[in-house]
């Protein structure tokens, strides 16, 4: 076996280099056990990140690289991974994987084999400038964001910023003859500002996520600071009631990811954890709601030619006009359910991605959820409110800790405004917002036009729900 992994591979050749090692690995695996099936995954990513917070700078870079092997024999399936993509490390994983299935009965009667080769989808866009971006530049970006935020208003007590640049690729091969690879780049930044007045402390964020250009930092620090200051002077709601809630894009994205983003995952459907099981074709949401999972949007940082087991990433309509159309699958759960893979196999991906994806076993994850915009602008939505409503402008805390099984959620909106008789009034002290995700989709009132890409791998406009309990 030839050894790779001595240093960072270049972007143009990374796929060929990784595929070559995968091919060699498959040949090696066959010599270890000719009767077993194998799948080999290699990953390499160049990572640079810089964080500046109140004059403290933390910056780092390195190459994340590793391998993962799945071995299967007579329906016994095992997984082994190790850091590095050298042939020694890969061989070690192959041997560990085969040792597991030889030593214990872990039969999975539902396992039907690794993926068969299919034509890949498309890689996403990439900007050459991201490949050239050095750490010094990232540090400068973060420093500028912080300085801009602090300069906005004397009530900004602290500002912090993180900027990252990443590029790399992965390759997959198996004993079915599949050999695929994909590359991607990303450049991201965020800035958070803390505004204070008396005992009041309010935080606001701004961000940019891109793969087709460099991040645009102009005005971003100021915008975050302005948002934080606008939250000062909050009043208590002083009531417990059921009220409409207007979720701006970032908060709507957190809602969509925590609810449908989980319940349409094939493993939850097949294993009896999703209440959407058995509801294909049925009305599960208001007719204003259409949601697609788009693994082929060239601008999304989740777009790859193939998913993490080598199946083409694709575009899947999940809900059309309120009716459930499709669940998301990898090869394994598609086989059990009687469907085709939707190209949603993932190794620790998503908005809370693993830093070492090769260590993660396969799961199903949405690639990039898109909520179809409606017809009302946010201003129109606000002006149509009769009585009181709560406008939620940031992801409520606790929203990501909800149970897919029950759909019950309870969260605290730290950043919200009271809307009264068609007008946005004062900021509110944190309010508790609770209810049931699935009931919420049925009681959805409208969808806005203000579409935004968010860090939660969801693109959505504002969404208005009725029926949630508010404690303020």
């Amino acid at each position: 076996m030839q050894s790779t992994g001595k240093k960072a591979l270049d972007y143009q050749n990374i796929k060929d280099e990784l595929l070559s090692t995968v091919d060699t690995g498959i040949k090696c695996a066959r010599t270890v056990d000719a009767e077993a099936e194998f799948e080999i995954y290699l990953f390499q990513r160049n990572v640079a990140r810089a964080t500046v917070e109140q004059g403290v700078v933390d910056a780092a870079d390195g190459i994340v690289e590793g391998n993962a092997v799945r071995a299967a024999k007579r329906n016994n399936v095992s997984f082994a991974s190790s850091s590095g993509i050298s042939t020694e490390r890969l061989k070690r994983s192959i041997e560990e994987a085969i040792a597991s299935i030889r030593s214990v009965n872990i039969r999975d009667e539902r396992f039907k084999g690794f993926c068969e080769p299919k034509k890949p989808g498309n890689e996403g866009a990439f900007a050459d400038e991201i490949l050239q971006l050095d750490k010094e530049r990232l540090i400068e970006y973060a420093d500028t964001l912080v300085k801009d935020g602090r300069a906005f208003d004397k009530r900004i007590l602290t500002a912090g910023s993180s900027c990252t640049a990443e590029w790399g690729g992965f390759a997959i091969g198996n004993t079915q003859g599949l050999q695929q690879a994909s590359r991607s780049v990303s450049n991201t930044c965020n800035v958070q500002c803390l505004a204070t007045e008396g005992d009041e402390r309010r935080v606001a964020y701004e961000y940019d996520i891109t793969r087709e250009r460099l991040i645009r930092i102009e005005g971003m620090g100021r915008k975050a600071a302005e948002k934080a200051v606008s939250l000062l002077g909050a009043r208590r709601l002083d009531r417990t009631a059921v009220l409409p809630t207007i979720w701006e894009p970032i908060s709507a994205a957190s809602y969509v990811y925590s609810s449908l983003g989980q319940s349409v995952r094939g493993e939850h459907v097949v294993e009896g954890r999703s209440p959407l099981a058995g509801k294909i074709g049925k009305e599960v949401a208001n007719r204003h709601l259409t949601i697609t999972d788009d693994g082929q949007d060239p601008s999304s940082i989740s777009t790859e030619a193939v998913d993490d087991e080598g199946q083409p990433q694709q575009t899947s309509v999940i809900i059309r006009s309120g009716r459930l159309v499709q669940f998301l699958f990898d090869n394994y759960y598609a086989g059990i359910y009687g469907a085709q893979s939707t190209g949603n196999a993932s190794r620790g991906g998503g908005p809370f991605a693993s830093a070492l994806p090769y260590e993660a076993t396969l799961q199903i994850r949405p690639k990039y959820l898109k909520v179809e915009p409606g017809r009302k602008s946010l201003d129109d939505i606000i002006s149509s409110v009769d009585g009181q409503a709560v406008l939620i402008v940031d992801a409520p805390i606790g929203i990501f800790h909800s149970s897919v099984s029950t759909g019950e959620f309870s969260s605290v909106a730290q950043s919200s405004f009271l809307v009264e008789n068609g007008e946005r009034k004062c900021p509110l002290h944190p309010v508790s917002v609770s209810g049931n995700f699935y009931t919420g989709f049925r009681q959805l009132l409208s969808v806005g036009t203000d579409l935004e890409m968010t860090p939660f791998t969801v693109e959505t406009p504002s969404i208005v729900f009725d029926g949630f309990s508010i404690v303020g």
Partner: protein
Amino acid sequence: MLEKLEKCVEIGEKLGAEFVEARFDDLTLRTLLRVNDTWKDVALGSREGFGVACYFSGASGYSFTSSGGREELETAVERAFRIAKASAKVVSLRLDFEQRPAVKSKRSEAYPLKIHPQARDLAYKTDLVNRAVDSARAFGESIANVTGMYGELYGHKMFANSEGSSTDWNFELVDLTCLVTSRTDVGDLVNGFGHAGGTAGLELFNTEGSTPEDIGMEAGVHAKEQLKAKVCPAGKFRALIENELVGVLAHESFGHLSEGDFVVTEGSPLAGKINATLGTEHATIVDQGYPDISRFGGLWIPYDDQGTKANKTTVLDKGVLKHYLHSRGTAKYLRQEPTGNCRAIHFGFIPIPRMTNTYFEAGRLTKEEALELLDTGIYAIQTSGGQVEGDGSFLFKAIRGYKVQKGQIREPLREVALSGNILNLLSKVEGATRDLRIRSGYFGGCGKSGQAPLPCGLGGPELVVSAVTFGGEAS
């Protein structure tokens, strides 16, 4: 391997770094996941790599590599130094070190385990999971899904720095967890949960309360009870908060605010409040790298990732803020002693101030006295996680709960969410029970700054609190 780390330090110093730290992780991770009758994951991972931090003019730079080759290590040191120099141009808050005596550990220093995970084969561990799942099925009802999980994480952590420190110790962690989902008559899904874990050998699963049968039974019984549970009413109530959930409060909502990096940047509301009274006399919060694991459970972390020996740090003493949790840089800046809290999840990250085992100290109440003191309110138990904000606001999910009336536990409640602000809550602690428990495990962990999940220990006694906001149904 320590020689390689010492070589990295030497190279960094030659380049001009004022201080260099080098780390090596060689960890093994095993995950077993059984969903109903299917083995979904039988996984073994080897996590091996180097990290180098160079310090220059009050700034740091960090680089990492999974390869131990000479060329790759030299490149990592050079990159770390280059980043430190670039950072020094921007840094305005310097986090220099005090010079300290070298720290030396024994070779492969380890917590004594009776049955190391390496000493048992895979079949032994799959059997643990099978026994938990069988037990859950025996005690549960209307089960839609039962999941059994086993995890182990062990191996070497090595460190060297410019002061001549060299530490070499073994990280050790096991976990057995069972989750049951049951379906109610009207089709709603409810959960039950059982768990045992922490720094221990496999003998842990032979002890009463932590056997696979006990863990499965706990998950099954509680899921069954949830079939009849009601939704928690929304509003403010008196509360009795159970040990695990108290631990989450100690860690998530208070512990993070006391972390030195958050304090030096003034992002924490605890900045500048040493010796301020923040809570009642019943609120004492401690962080400790070496708790009495045999009595209370927890995680053994004898050195942090800057080579500082672990400490017992009383952060809040009877309601009074006494100390922060530090890296060496934040300790010097805030004129306190390093606390052994600078940790990284793995070699891919620079260590930052993180907690080890964080817990409320036990009080004097018996369980009966705590219920009597509560009188009428909500008893909130276990946790499925939560979230906090930098101002101390929190929201945590208790997996289950009960209504309590006149000191008597009444009907069960479904998943209960507690929210509020920790600084406000500390001033409402009326009492603590005698039983301290510290929970730790392989599944889940702390998620600060993208470094998730870092294993930690968290715990406490049960606390009586005069008012907590519960999310639920508005009447």
